[in-house]
């Protein structure tokens, strides 16, 4: 992957993240603080968090071809850094009555779920690409 391709994939990931964070916040907020009122500036939160989460994903950029082991290790480091960034950015809402530990733990789980959803989404895109390549290959083989 060239640097240009990598940056393009990060832009793509940013928009996917904004959507998923918005969705996750809506579901999670409905559970922990349904009476909480939000202001317009709160709408910037998913954009800010997604932007901040994109930065740690740069650890998965490789100039040289990584081994599967290196790739998996970088993915784990990426997840941990994202968790750290999110923990630093979010705080419990004023009307939240539970413990802080519980709040941060559930946020951590939510980040993990979003991370896995994105991984699955990218895996699905790659699967579609592979299917398309196989179809094109069959056409090439048929036109000897």
């Amino acid at each position, binding site marked *: 992957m060239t640097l240009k391709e990598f940056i393009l994939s990060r832009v793509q990931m940013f928009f996917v993240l904004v959507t998923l964070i918005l969705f996750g916040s809506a579901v999670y907020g409905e559970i922990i603080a349904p009476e909480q009122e939000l202001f317009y500036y709160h709408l910037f939160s998913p954009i800010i968090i997604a932007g901040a989460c994109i930065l740690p994903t740069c650890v998965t950029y490789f100039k040289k071809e990584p081994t599967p082991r290196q790739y998996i290790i970088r993915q784990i480091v990426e997840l941990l850094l994202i968790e750290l960034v999110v923990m630093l950015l979010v705080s419990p809402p004023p009307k939240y009555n539970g413990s802080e530990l519980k709040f941060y733990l559930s946020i951590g789980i939510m980040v993990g779920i979003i991370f896995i959803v994105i991984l699955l989404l990218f895996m699905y895109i790659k699967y579609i690409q592979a299917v398309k*390549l196989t179809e094109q290959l069959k056409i090439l083989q048929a036109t000897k």
Partner: protein
Amino acid sequence: MTFKQSIDMQTKITKIDKSKPEMIEIQCHTLSEEVQEIVAFVKSRQGQLSCVSDEKIYEVSVSDILYIETVDNKSFVYTLNNVYETKQRLYELEEMLKEKRFLRISKSMLLNLMKVSSIKPALNSRFMAELISGEQVVITRKYASDLKKALKGGMV
């Protein structure tokens, strides 16, 4: 293809009648490595590759080759039932066989696209090519884009 400057051959092309068979004749003092390279090149253009297996020389049909791999600076030709060695370098083979629908899929491998049954996703922008023999070979990140271009553009 580059030859050493020590070769000082004259080339002669004679047009013949269509009723006579076309042929290439090499007149040389010794059967040097350079001459063998020329012979191998001509044969590859005709769809054959000079290979060695068990100290015997074989003319392997290009259409029978699954893939060619370089291991320790040696090029190995894989067919459905055999593995042969060839003296030619991978970049030379790549140049010779690109019109035969062979594509570089990694630093050390040339793949015959006509022998691929399917392409599957793999980790980190890589793909796996499953061959008709059931073997799987890795299409590295660097060459995955070449494969996409080749298949999109209908290749050669």
